[in-house]
C-alpha cells in the first residue's frame, strides 16, 4: 500500500471538502423558518370629558336612623351624621347614559364634587363606599338601606373641614371605570362619617338645590 504523506496541499483539500459539508448543513437549516405567524396592528383611543349634574342625571337622598321609615328624596340638602343611635347616611348616584360611552371605554379620571352648606364644628372624615344593589331616592329609608349591599371597603374618603359653603372633591376613578364597562357594576355611593366617636353633622346640597352650582357633580375624563 502506498504511503500518504501529510502535505499542506492535502490538508487544504480535506478542509475544502469539509467546509462544503458544513455549508450544506447550514442551507438545510434555513428551510425551517417558513411556518411562523406574524401580525402587527394598532388602536387609537378617543378622549373626552362628560359632566353630570342636576336632577335628570343625579339621584340623591339621605336616610336617618332616628326615623327609620322616613324618606328624603326631594330634600334640597342631605345629611351625614355621626351620633350613637341617630346616624345619618347620604346616597348619591349618577346616570351615565348621557355620556354615550361604550362598554369598551373607560374612565381616565372621575371626580365627585359635593358642596357643604353647613360644616361640622370639628373636622370629620367622610367615606364613599360603592352601593352594589339598586335603590331609589323616593323610597330609600334607613331600614331599607340596611338591606343594600355595599362594597367591601370605601373607595375613598375626604375631610370636611369646618367652613361652610365650600366644595369638596373626591376621586372615584376605579368605580366609574367599572361602571362604564358594566352599567350594573354599582349604583352610586353611600357617604357616611367614619371619624369614629362624636356627634357631628355635615350638610350637603342635593341635586334639587335651587343653586345649580352647588349640586353634586361628577366629571369624567374618559377614553373610548
Amino acid at each position, binding site marked *: *500500500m502506498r*504511503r*500518504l*504523506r*501529510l502535505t499542506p496541499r*492535502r*490538508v487544504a483539500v*480535506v*478542509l475544502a*471538502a*469539509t*467546509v*462544503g*459539508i*458544513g*455549508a*450544506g*448543513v*447550514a*442551507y438545510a*437549516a*434555513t*428551510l425551517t*423558518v*417558513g*411556518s*411562523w*405567524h*406574524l*401580525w*402587527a*396592528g*394598532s*388602536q*387609537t*383611543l378617543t*378622549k373626552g370629558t362628560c359632566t353630570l349634574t342636576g336632577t335628570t342625571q343625579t339621584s340623591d337622598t339621605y336616610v336617618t336612623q332616628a326615623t327609620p321609615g322616613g324618606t328624603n328624596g326631594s330634600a334640597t340638602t342631605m345629611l351625614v351624621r355621626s351620633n350613637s343611635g341617630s346616624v345619618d347616611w347620604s346616597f348619591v348616584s349618577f346616570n351615565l347614559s348621557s355620556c354615550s360611552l361604550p362598554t*369598551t*371605554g*373607560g*374612565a*381616565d*379620571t372621575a371626580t365627585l364634587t359635593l358642596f357643604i352648606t353647613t360644616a361640622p364644628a370639628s373636622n370629620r372624615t367622610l367615606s364613599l363606599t360603592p352601593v352594589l344593589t339598586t335603590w331609589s331616592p323616593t323610597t330609600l329609608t334607613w331600614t331599607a338601606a340596611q338591606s343594600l349591599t355595599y362594597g367591601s371597603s370605601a*373607595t*375613598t374618603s375626604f375631610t370636611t373641614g369646618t367652613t361652610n359653603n365650600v366644595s369638596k372633591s373626591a*376621586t*372615584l*376613578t*376605579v*368605580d366609574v*371605570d*367599572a361602571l362604564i*364597562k358594566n352599567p350594573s357594576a354599582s349604583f352610586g355611593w353611600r357617604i357616611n362619617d367614619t371619624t369614629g366617636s362624636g356627634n357631628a353633622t355635615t350638610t350637603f346640597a342635593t341635586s334639587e338645590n335651587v343653586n345649580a352650582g352647588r349640586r353634586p357633580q361628577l366629571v369624567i*375624563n374618559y*377614553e373610548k
Partner: protein
Amino acid sequence: MKHLTKALGLGLAAAATFTACAAAATLTIGSTTLSAGNASVTACTSSLSATRNVGNSGNVTQVNVAGIPTACSGETLSVTLVGSGNAALGSGSGTVGSCGTTCSVTITSFGATVSASNVTGYSFGLTGA
C-alpha cells in the same frame, strides 16, 4: 498511513468547526451555493382591540385583549401603551389562551407606571408558530 489518519482527523475537526459556524451565520456563506426559495409568513388575525382597567389613582392596572381567533392560541401577544407623539409609555406580553369561541390575553405588567390619561392608543405584535 499514519500521516493520512492524522490528515483525516484534522479534517473532521475542521468540518465540525465549520459546520457549527455555518449554522450560526447562514446569511454570509450562501451566495454561490444557496438557491432562492420562499417561506410563507401568515397572520392568524387581521385586527385586535384592547380595553384597560385602572386603579383609583388613574394608573393602568391591566390591559385586556379579547376576541382573538382560536388560530392564534398559544402565540405571544405584545402590547405597547402608546402616548402622545407615539411615545412608548410601557409594554408587556402574554400568551394567547383562555380560549372558547375566541381567545383572550390579560397583561398586568408594563415595566412602568402608566397613567391612563396619557395613553392615546395601543400597538400590538402577535408572533408564533
